[in-house]
């Protein structure tokens, strides 16, 4: 295996995920506008927003500590790290052995903890409210996420994402009911973790309902831009985790670079369909009351556990 090619492909993959993440948000927004009979904004609108925010001067509360100032960078760094670990274009990249799926969940937990701490740091009412709600959602979503990942890990016999993708992509076609369960559970966790519509509404600042927006209310300019970018990257990373676990077909191997164009095309097609599907879900569903969210996430947990149980059943 060519070491230099591996490293350059690794860098390319991390860059693509981070750079294309606002594009995915733009695509989801366009699809939502189409489905709701509105005229669609430009697909590049998230980039313009980020550019605008980067050019503004940051305003920071006088009581803010260093934690508040460093959190946006930590969030962005966590998401970038996750983007490097999850195989989106090719497997067996040099950075892939750095972390398995459990460590990946840990990285997301780290990001969540820092954003909650930063929200509490300022001492505003909204920050505390948002942080508490975020931790409520987080502690319910995390077990469901882990159970989903364990189901895939059981089927392929490893917790390394690379091995999971390789064994799921290259086996003969078989219907795994356990993977179907885990897929639905994973999608529910994706909606909750990324603050999408049935759990949180990313587009409003209504104090009774907001979760993620309440936490970042005090941020402005470049800090806000980094946080929004990190949020977009998080959605992208969750989507490619989903692709890696449930529809891994078309991914290239680093030893055989001829599969790379196909891998790019497959990734693009999967993202387009997934974005449309996300927009469809967000159009069809209304936002839940906050107290329904535990019910939603406990159903996700239940589905993930059922998926794992049906895997053991198919062994007998």
């Amino acid at each position, binding site marked *: 295996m060519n070491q230099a090619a591996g490293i350059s492909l690794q860098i390319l993959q991390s860059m693509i995920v981070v750079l294309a993440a606002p594009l995915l948000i733009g695509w989801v927004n366009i699809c939502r506008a189409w489905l709701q009979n509105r005229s669609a904004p430009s697909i590049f609108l998230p980039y313009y927003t980020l550019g605008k925010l980067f050019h503004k001067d940051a305003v920071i509360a006088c009581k803010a500590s260093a934690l508040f100032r460093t959190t946006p960078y930590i969030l962005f760094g966590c998401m970038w790290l996750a983007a490097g670990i999850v195989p989106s274009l090719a497997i067996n990249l040099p950075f892939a052995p750095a972390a398995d799926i459990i460590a990946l969940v840990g990285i997301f937990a780290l990001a969540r903890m820092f954003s909650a701490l930063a929200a509490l740091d300022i001492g505003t009412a909204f920050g505390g409210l948002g942080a508490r709600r975020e931790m409520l959602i987080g502690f319910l979503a995390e077990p469901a996420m882990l159970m989903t990942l364990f189901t895939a890990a059981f089927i392929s016999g490893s917790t390394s994402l690379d091995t999971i993708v390789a064994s799921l992509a290259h086996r003969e076609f*078989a*219907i795994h*009911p*356990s993977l*179907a*369960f885990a897929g639905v559970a994973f999608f529910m966790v994706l909606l909750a973790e990324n603050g999408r519509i049935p759990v949180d509404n990313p587009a409003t600042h209504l104090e009774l309902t907001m979760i993620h927006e309440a936490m970042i209310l005090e941020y402005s300019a470049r800090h806000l831009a980094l946080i929004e970018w990190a949020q977009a990257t998080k959605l992208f990373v969750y989507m490619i985790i989903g692709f890696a676990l449930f529809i891994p077909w078309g991914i290239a191997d680093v030893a055989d670079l001829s599969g790379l164009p196909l891998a790019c095309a497959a990734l693009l097609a999967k993202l387009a369909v997934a974005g449309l599907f996300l927009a469809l879900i967000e159009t069809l569903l209304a936002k839940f009351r906050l107290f329904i969210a*535990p*019910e939603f996430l*406990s*159903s996700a*947990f*239940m*589905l993930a*556990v*059922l998926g794992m*149980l*049906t895997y*053991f*059943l*198919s062994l*007998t």
Partner: protein
Amino acid sequence: MNVSFSSQMVNLLAALLLLIAFAMLSQRRVLSLIKLLAWQGAALAAATFIVAWSTGQQHLYLSVTLTVLLKVILIPWLLHRLIDKLNVRWDVETLINIPAMMLVGIGLVIFAFSLATPISQMAGAFTRSTLGIALASILLAFLMMIVRRKAVPQVIGFLAMENGLLFAATSATYGMPLVVELGIALDVLVGTLIFGIFFFHLREAFDSLDIRHMEKLKQD
């Protein structure tokens, strides 16, 4: 159709059956419950059809027809008409809250799976691995009958339990003898009709379909 593919399809439909059982457990609206019951019947019919097709058991086709006619069309329609007439579209109350019920349900599924494993090792049918799921959906329907207060969801739980029983019979021994199956179908139909009459009497006597009112009879 080769056996491994049809076995996978039956496994998938069995998983769907279990999923619908859980959805029923967590559903708040009566109308959605009836819809879910019809879908569960459809999944059962599809699974039975695949078993019939791949094993060549002729009498199973009749079972499929009965299931489609009764479980998917007639009984949901009857229930629908019944709640229209009774004008009861309230949300269903449960005795324990829904997340807790999910956890109890998961416990039941684990219990059913471990109970079914030794039995399914003795069975010779290629669908034997779904016996645990059939048992689990029976137990979940039981749980639903226990935790619901109103009469209509309890009847739906009863019908769901019957679905689970039929599926258990299909997966363990390729279905029951024809006479038994016809008998059960008739029983279920008559049962639903009697329950319908019972609902009207219940409402006349207590002005409500809440079966807790029936406990008062003892005190008078």
